[in-house]
C-alpha cells in the first residue's frame, strides 16, 4: 500500500458494476438489492476504474479529457472514490 493515495488502485467490488441504462439514458451503479443513478462526471471517473490503473493515472487522463485544473479533478476523484470504498462499492486492489 502506498502512502500517497494517488498511487492506489481502485476496483469494483464483486457484485458491483457501472452500467449504461439504455432505456432511461443514464448511468447506474448496479449493486446488491439496488441500483443508484450516477451523474456524467461520476460515470467518467468510474469508466476508468478497471482494477489495474492507479488513481494518479485516472486523474491525469481526466485532466486531459476535460481540460480542467488537475488539482480540482484530483480532489473530486479522491473524495468520490473514498466515499464509494466506504460504501463497499469499490475496494482497493493495491
Amino acid at each position: 500500500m502506498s502512502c500517497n493515495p494517488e498511487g492506489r488502485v481502485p476496483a469494483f467490488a464483486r457484485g458491483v458494476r457501472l452500467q449504461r441504462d439504455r432505456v432511461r439514458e443514464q448511468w447506474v451503479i448496479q449493486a446488491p438489492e439496488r441500483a443508484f443513478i450516477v451523474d456524467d462526471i461520476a460515470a467518467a471517473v468510474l469508466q476508468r476504474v478497471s482494477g489495474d490503473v492507479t488513481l494518479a493515472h485516472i486523474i491525469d487522463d481526466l485532466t486531459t479529457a476535460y481540460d480542467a485544473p488537475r488539482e480540482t479533478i484530483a480532489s473530486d476523484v479522491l473524495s468520490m472514490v473514498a466515499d464509494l470504498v466506504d460504501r463497499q462499492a469499490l475496494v482497493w486492489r493495491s
Partner: protein
Amino acid sequence: MTLPAPPMSLLAELTHRCPLQCPYCSNPEALEPVAQELSTQEWIRVFDEAADLGVLQVHFSGGEPMVRRDLSELVRHAVRKGLYTNLITSGVLMDSKALGALSSAGLDHVQLSFQDVAPIMAEHIGGMKGAQEKKIEAARLVVADGMPLTLNFVVHRLNVERIPQMFDLAEELGARRVEIAHTQYYGWGLRNRRALLPTREQLQQSEHDVAAARERFGTRMAIDFVTPDYYADEPKPCMGGWGQRFLNITPSGRVLPCHAAETIPGVLFPDVRETGLARIWNESKLFGMFRGTDWMPEPCRSCARKEEDWGGCRCQALALTGRADATDPVCRLSPDRGLVDKAIVQTDDQPFVYRRMGRNAAG
C-alpha cells in the same frame, strides 16, 4: 398518452415448490403446481422483454428457485442481457457444484434466508429438520466464492429477541448485508398472525437492537430494517407505489404489481403467455388500477403524504377491510384503524398453519 415510468426490478418466482414451510411465506395460499410452471424458453423471453422495458435487476425467487434445474441457464441469459442477478434462496439445496454453476453463469448476489439463529427454533419455524446446518454451509460456500452475501431474517414474536445474535452470525459468516424484516401480515402471515405478531415491547427492543448494530458495524455492513407497520402511524409505500417500480411474475406467468395482488377480486391477471410484458406494464387494467393518486379515497386524496406512501398497501387494505381501494388501515387517519388495534391485542400461542402444497384448506 404518456407512458408510465418503466419498472426497475422484476421478482421472478420460478416455482412455488419449496422444502421449507414457513408460516409467513409470501407465496399465495393457493400454490401453483409444477405442471403450470413457465418453461426455460418462456422465462428467457420474459427476461428479454424485461430488459427491453427497462428492468435493471432480476430477483430469482420462489418457493425455492434452486429446485429448478435450469436455474443457472436462466441466470446466464439474464446476465447476458445486462440484468443484475440476485438469487433469493433458503440455501437448503446449495452445494459446491450448484454454486459453481451459478457463479460461472455470472450470478451477482445471493440473499440467504434464515428462520432463526437457534437451530431448534429455526427448524420449528421452517418445518424442516437439518435445514440450519445446510444454510450455514451455503453461506460459507457463497463467501468462499467471493460473491456478496445478504442474510435475511424474518422476525416475529418467536425469534425477535435474538436480533443481536443474528448480527453475530452474519459477521461470523462474512455477510456484507443483513435484512431484518418484521413479518408482513397477508396470505400465510395473516393466517398465523396471532402466533407471530410481536408485542410493542418486543418491537421497541428490536428497534434498539438494530440501532446498536448500525453503530457497531458502521459502513462495514449494510443493514436493512423493515418494521411491522401494525405499530406504526403511517403505512409503508408498498413496492414503491403500485405499478411504479416493481413487477412480480408467478411460476405460471401471471404478472402482478406485488406478490399478494392475486387476492384482489374481480380483475383479470395478465399473463406473459398471452401478452407482452411492455403491454402489460403500460396498458393493463391491473397495473393502472392503483397507479398514482387518482384512485385514492379520502383521507388519502387530500393528504400531504399521498406521494410518499401512495396510500399504503392495497393487499393489506383488502385483507383487513374487504376493500382494495380503501386507505391502508394501518394509517392513523384511516376510519378502519380500529381493526389493526384490535389485532395487536389478539395474540396467543396457537400452533402454526404451515405453508403446504394442497393441504392448506384446514387450520
